[in-house]
């Protein structure tokens, strides 16, 4: 199982537009990607409501996990996405 930890770069945190972009990207991987914060129960990364309910703010760390073919590459691209300030783009 592939795992990555990344710090949220978006100024407004993982909500609204940043969350939408992340969920779309996670859905497009076709894999079962999960996301968690502070060691809490992970949530489905393709669920916008689950992702927003994490309440991940700017500067907080989240952990991504995925299984299956191409999991490492998929997580790398999601990490790259969360490392950008998606709001200012």
């Amino acid at each position, binding site marked *: 199982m592939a795992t990555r930890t990344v710090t949220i770069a978006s100024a407004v945190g993982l*909500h*609204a*537009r940043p969350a*939408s972009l992340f969920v779309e990207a996670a859905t497009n991987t076709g894999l079962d990607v999960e996301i968690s914060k502070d060691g809490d129960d992970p949530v*489905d990364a393709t*669920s916008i*409501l*689950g992702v927003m*309910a994490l*309440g991940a703010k700017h500067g907080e760390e989240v952990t991504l996990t995925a299984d299956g073919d191409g999991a490492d590459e998929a997580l790398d691209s999601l990490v790259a996405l969360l490392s950008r300030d998606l709001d200012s783009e």
Partner: protein
Amino acid sequence: MSSSETQTVAPPETRQGIGVSPGTAYGPVVQVSPPVRPPRNEPAVDDQDAALSDIRAAFEAVAVSLEQRATLVDDTAQQILKATALMARDKGLVKASAKELAAGHGRATSIDLAIETFAAKFDALGGYFAERVADLRDVGSRAVAAVLGVPAPGVPAFTEPSVIVAEDLAPAETATLDRSRVIGIITEAGGRTSHTAILAAQMGIPAVVQLVGATSIPVGTAVALDGDSGEVTIAPDMELVSQQRERAARRSEALSHLSGAGATSDGHAVALLANIGGVEDAVSAGALDLEGVGLFRTEFVFLSATTAPTVQEQTEIYRGVFAPFGGRRVVVRTLDAGADKPLKFADLGPEENPALGRRGLRLSAEQPDLLDAQLEALGIAARETGADVRVMAPMVATAEEAAWFARRVRDNGLPKAGVMIEVPGAALRSRHVLEEVDFGSLGTNDLAQYTMAADRMQGALSDLLDPWQPAVLDVVAAACEGAAAVDRPIGVCGESAGDPLLALVLVGLGVSSLSMAPSKVPVVRLALSLHSVAECQTLAAAARAARTAGDALTAVRDAARSELTTLL
């Protein structure tokens, strides 16, 4: 009846509402449907699998319709609608609905409960997250409508320029209105200072509120509305429409020749300022020909937060509001919260009479830390941007309160302190209240509410709240006399400042600045430029000599210069 662009069957009928945003419009009616709630005591379903696939289909239909609407609107609204569509497609909602079905709830109730589970989570997160609750509930209301087979709530999709008609408009609905297609707004409820009124004026869309029977006008019927007079004509003949258009053209022609600082015909300066409620308003008003801001409402910084916003967070927001005005003045009203606008982090509990309770400066007196943090942030942002920032307190009643506030403002390095004059007691004793500060600002909406003992939120009491009420004008006059006695400037920042005839009366009473929805500035500038101070004083005397609000308006309309009144 001559040939008309839209089919009309019934003869023209004119109804009287209250004009709240100037301008005229003519076009077909689009009716906004009210939110849909699940039926009470909805029975449990027989076949849970079938019910769940109904629910899944309902959410999918909502997502598809939101995506379709997203293609019709501008960028910002498009992103909101797309993100909302993503919510409607969330597997989590279907899962949560399945749980509710299993617990013995009906289809619509299950959807509603599933939505509320997530809404509670977002509410608890506060801030940006809590702001999405309205979108989530909108998804829920649409899905409930879909399983019940009734029309979706909110503004339906439409392509032809239209007049939007609603019981009242919710903030979320107005945010996604397409300005290029919405040519007018009519509501059955609402008042002069309702959300719809303020927003329509801000967006420059002609609007009429309090129109009896508005929601029963059939969809597609042509209407002509006049946002100045408040008249709405259903199925008008083309002569009326062309009269309105001709007047609108003459008015925009007259307004196009004027610009710059406000002044009477004999050169007496009257500052023309904008009322704003956030960073977006500031950016759009900052680009306009006006002399600054006469009322910056700061509530939005606090109302959605679950914890008190830090000095740093506030500084950033205030910087964004001040920057568009360069060195122009920005009058900031400190936090005006209370039982009617409760704060999650400073709630003093429910009150029997919130309008008369611990609100405005009274709340700040009980929670001085909140006020101090706000003043500190305002001070930092003012120094960083170089804007001419002046701070005033809401709901001041006595000279002691004014002195207490002024001291705190100056302790935070802010040069100018003022008070709102919205309590009749403070208006009658303005000499002593204003002696403690640098300026006063009449909040005529609240001043009318307290003078006439009529709740602003009661649409049915609109007549009592009419700013032309001679008693309200008397109280304004008393406040101006007191201000003059101690040589303090006094302005008006209520909706009455944006009424060109009333603006003349206010100047005649001694007011030196007028702050209003930015769209109303040009016509007020024109009104001032056509009258001397002495003429304004004559108009003020005529208004105060009248027996009723209607008589006061008629007296001023008859006595004002026809170059102005023929344009209104």
